[in-house]
């Protein structure tokens, strides 16, 4: 089998006496959508921060795209193709959609020091931005400032900013959170259209989205991976049902 895109090897992280990440091993295969679920306080956000590089693990290793990135910071990991979509939509509010995407294009491509021509006058850059905004359903919203976007649109914009960088892995931190039903379904369809092309680690509470999208599901309980397997297996796993999904909840 091909080498996994992302491999976590016995990660541990404590805050004082609180052991938030316990011996976490997890891998994401090429093209796979891997969902990470777990009750509130299971340590999902801490784990995501360690994968993204904003938090250093106490022990353990993180391999990404064939390289040990445990010691690298956020920006170098991002340049290696790790794209993060934040739990709270993280775009530049005062910038237009075009400017946001332009920043994403330039940040990773090394064109970020260009001092010659005006940035937004570059036809190649505009075309690339137009393309990616089309692909997430934001065609015609290029010149609108991100603060004026709806929640779902901002989410789509953030996704566009990730996609334009041709990422090796999409790290999606609760993308459905706060979106309406219709928007959530639209976003699920959008992610479904990317499935197979870009590997994803999907942290999500919305079980419909998880079971629609995921190839495999890992369950985090008390900081440790309680189970990993195909959605159908996880759904019927008694431990998981008891700890997380809830016995009386129909999934």
């Amino acid at each position, binding site marked *: 089998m091909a080498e996994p895109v992302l491999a976590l090897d016995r990660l541990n992280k404590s805050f004082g006496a609180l052991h938030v990440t316990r011996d976490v091993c997890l891998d994401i295969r090429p093209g796979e959508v891997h969902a990470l679920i777990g009750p509130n306080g299971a340590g999902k956000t801490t784990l995501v921060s360690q994968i*993204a590089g904003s938090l250093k693990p106490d022990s353990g290793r993180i391999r990404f795209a064939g390289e040990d990135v445990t010691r690298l*910071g*956020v*920006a*170098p990991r*991002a*340049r290696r193709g790790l*794209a*993060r979509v*934040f739990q709270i939509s*993280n*775009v*530049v*509010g*005062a*910038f*237009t959609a075009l*400017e946001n995407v*332009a*920043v*994403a294009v*330039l*940040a*990773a491509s090394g*064109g*970020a*020091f*260009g*001092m*010659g*021509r*005006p*940035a*937004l006058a570059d036809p190649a850059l505009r075309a690339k931005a137009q393309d990616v905004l089309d692909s997430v359903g934001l065609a015609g919203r290029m010149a609108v*400032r991100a*603060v*004026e976007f709806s929640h779902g649109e901002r989410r789509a914009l953030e996704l566009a*900013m990730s996609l334009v*960088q041709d990422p090796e892995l999409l790290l999606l931190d609760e993308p459905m959170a706060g979106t309406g039903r219709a928007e959530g379904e639209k976003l699920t369809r959008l992610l479904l259209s990317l499935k197979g092309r870009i590997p994803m680690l999907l942290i999500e509470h919305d079980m419909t989205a998880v079971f629609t999208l995921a190839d495999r599901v890992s369950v985090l309980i008390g900081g440790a991976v309680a189970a990993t397997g195909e959605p159908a297996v996880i759904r019927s796993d008694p431990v998981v049902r008891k700890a997380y999904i809830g016995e009386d909840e129909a999934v």
Partner: protein
Amino acid sequence: MSPLAPAPAVPRPRAGIGQTAALMALLAAALALAYGLGSSYGAGLVTRTAILALAAVSLSFLIGQAGLVSFGHAAPLGIGAYAVLIAGEYDMTNILAVLPLAFGAAALFALATGAIALRTRGVYFIMITLAFAQMVFYVAASLSAFGGDDGMAIAARSTFFGARILKPDLHLALLAIALLAAAALGLEHLAASRYGLMLRAGRENETKLEALGLDPYRHRLIAISVAGGIAGVAGALLANQVEYVSPSTMNWHLSGELIVMVVLGGSRRLGGAVIGAMVVVLLDEALGRFTEHWKLGLGLVILGAVLFRGAEVRALLGKFSHG
């Protein structure tokens, strides 16, 4: 976010070029008027305005584009002034050497201190830039060979291969306006470039920019150096105008006054700093005639500006609280 509370508009740097041109024309017209009336006092005032506007524009680039509120901008300005003084003592007065020297020395200082100051954010950045400026102030005051506390007169105004081109005040005034125009247009250009876009993105949302793969540290360091260099040129012009250099050139009062100019005129557009410089210099002169407590009047104007520009000031303060 509710539509009732729109975020401050994105700076559209290209739109600022017309404003800059209009302001330069205004300065030139004021200069012409002063000469028409035979008022050398008025001409001196215009020159001083243009010089301080040059420093304020560079600070506006730092604050408005990079989001870095430096409370020590008088330091690179003073270093530029001392470059003229010290070079003059070694018989170097050629403007083609003196101006680059002033720019280089000030930019180098800004680079070295900026590299350290950039490890901090918000209010800590303000304090550390102030601390560095105070250090330079006391170093200058201890330079007994160059006047110490009292400062000293420069050997001569800058020359052009021996020709004393800056001797007429008119030439100095024109040079100051021309350099102000060049700096404003150059910085507008920089703000519109890819580099400028990344700088603003870092100001608005540093976390996201890093998650996209760019650590804006080097961008900010460049901005600090360029702004410092330009302030150095302003300092060199100031030394030429008053023909005297003393540590008070880099007093923290001046750093504060430059911030006032930027906030008064608005930091979203570089031209705002020019307007701010005009207002502060005019108030300084007008109120200074009536009362030695003229700073009280300036204080009231600042209060008004804060009330009017509440959103912008809050945005600056918002950054402090994250610091």
